[in-house]
Each structure stands twice: as C-alpha cells, then as structure tokens.
C-alpha cells in the first residue's frame, strides 16, 4: 500500500513539473529550484510533513522533499541549540546526500567519460 501511495504522490509531483515545463519557458534548473523552495517553505509551515506522512517516499524523494529536509534540519537544530541551529541545521539531514553527490559524482567522473 505504501508503494502505491509513493508511486502516485511522486508521480503527481513530477507530472506537475512536466506540465509547468511544457507550458512555460522555464528551464529544468528553474523548475528544480522552484520545487526545492516550495518544499522548504511548505516544510516551514508544517504542511509538507503532513503530506509526507501518507505519501512516504513519494514526498521524500522529489527535490521538494530535499528542500523540506533542509528546513527539518534547521528546526531540529533550532530546538537543540537555539539561534545557532538556523545556521548549522541546513546540512543536518541533507549533508549526507550532498556529500554523497560529491563523492559519487567525482568517482563517476574519474571512472567514465561522457558519451557524445
């Protein structure tokens, strides 16, 4: 059951992005930024977590979930440290992913050549 909701919720977010892409002049980079910001803002208001409760990975895996993770890190660090948490929290959850992207990205660049 959670696989079905993940499929439907994740698919719906991607379909929305595709509709925006096909009907505007925005580049994929603009849309990625837009969805990340939307996830962060909705996360700040507590809306995204409620969505994630039933959508599971369908909410976590799109970049909006990545934006939400930035805010979740800030809020949990804020609780632990006070105002310093606003500055340390961004990578509390996402740091794992960002470092993974750097390590694996560099490794792939060393191992493979781009196909033309």
């Amino acid at each position, binding site marked *: 059951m959670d*696989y079905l909701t993940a*499929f439907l*919720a*994740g*698919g719906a*977010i*991607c*379909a929305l*992005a*595709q*509709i*925006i*892409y096909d009907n505007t002049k925005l580049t*994929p980079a603009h*849309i*990625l*930024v837009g*969805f*990340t910001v939307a*996830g*962060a*803002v909705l*996360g*700040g208001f507590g809306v995204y977590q409620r969505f994630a409760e039933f959508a*599971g*990975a*369908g909410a*976590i*895996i*799109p*970049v909006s*979930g*990545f*934006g939400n*993770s*930035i*805010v979740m890190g800030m*809020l*949990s660090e*804020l609780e632990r440290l*006070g105002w310093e948490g*606003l500055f340390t929290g*961004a990578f*509390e*959850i996402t*740091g*794992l*992913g960002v470092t*993974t*992207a*750097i390590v*694996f*990205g560099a490794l*792939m*660049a*060393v*191992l*493979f050549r*781009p*196909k033309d």
Partner: protein
Amino acid sequence: MDKAQKDLHARYQQMVKEATPQPNRWRNTVMAFITGGAICTIGQLLYNLFETIEPSRLETTAVTQAAMIALGAIATGLGFYDWLAERGGMGAAIPVTGFSNTVTAAAMEFKREGYILGMGAKMFVIAGPVLVYGILSGFVVSLLRAVLTGSLF
C-alpha cells in the same frame, strides 16, 4: 509594407507555425508521472529497508535520500540516466536522483577543463542554485517560525 508583402509575411508566419514541432504534452505528462512514480517506489523500498535499522525518522529520510543520490550518480556514470531523462523528462529531473544526475553529469563533462577549475568549479553549476535558494528560503521560514514561537534563545 504593401498588401502583397503583408500576405507573404502572414503566409510565412503560418508556415513557421506549422513546421515548429509541438511537444506532445499529454504523452510527456504521462511519461513524467510513470518515471517519477517508479523512482519514488524504489525510494519507498529503500525507506522501508532503512527504517528497520535507523533510530529515527529524520535519519531514515537522510539515508534514503543519500542512497537515491548514490544510485542517481551511478546510473549517470553508466549512461543509463540520460536514456531515462530523454523519455521521462521531469519525471527523471525532479527526484533527488535528477539532482544527483546534474552533479555527476557536470563533473564528467567539465573534467576535460581540469580538476580544479573544471570539475571542481562547475560540478554544482545546476545543483548550486538548488542549494543556495533551498537554504535561503529555508532560513527565512525557519527564522520566522523561531521568532513567532519565541524559540530563538
């Protein structure tokens, strides 16, 4: 412009309109839905797996996102992600695997310009703005929430 010129101009515009390929929007949307949905289903599989070994929900989320980022990087290195992105469009771009794809693809592409000023400098050419605006907007809403709830100090 006299009338003949105007007619010619209008006819030319009509020809341009007909010759411009129209994106098949309905098909694009369905493909994005299926591709994005499938990627999130794999994410759910990993989430359920990590849930059994990680102590908290935040950590499970972090590890799941990182694992998908690693898979996205490997799929990009092997050339599979390009194939997927051609068909899935935003369905391949919007998941964190797509974020990872922009990092790995840039690293592979700009390696030829050197490791420092090529790969190092340009790896985050698309992922950079995502982090910058994600953090800026996150900072603003978190600050707002901290002020409203009085949890700043």
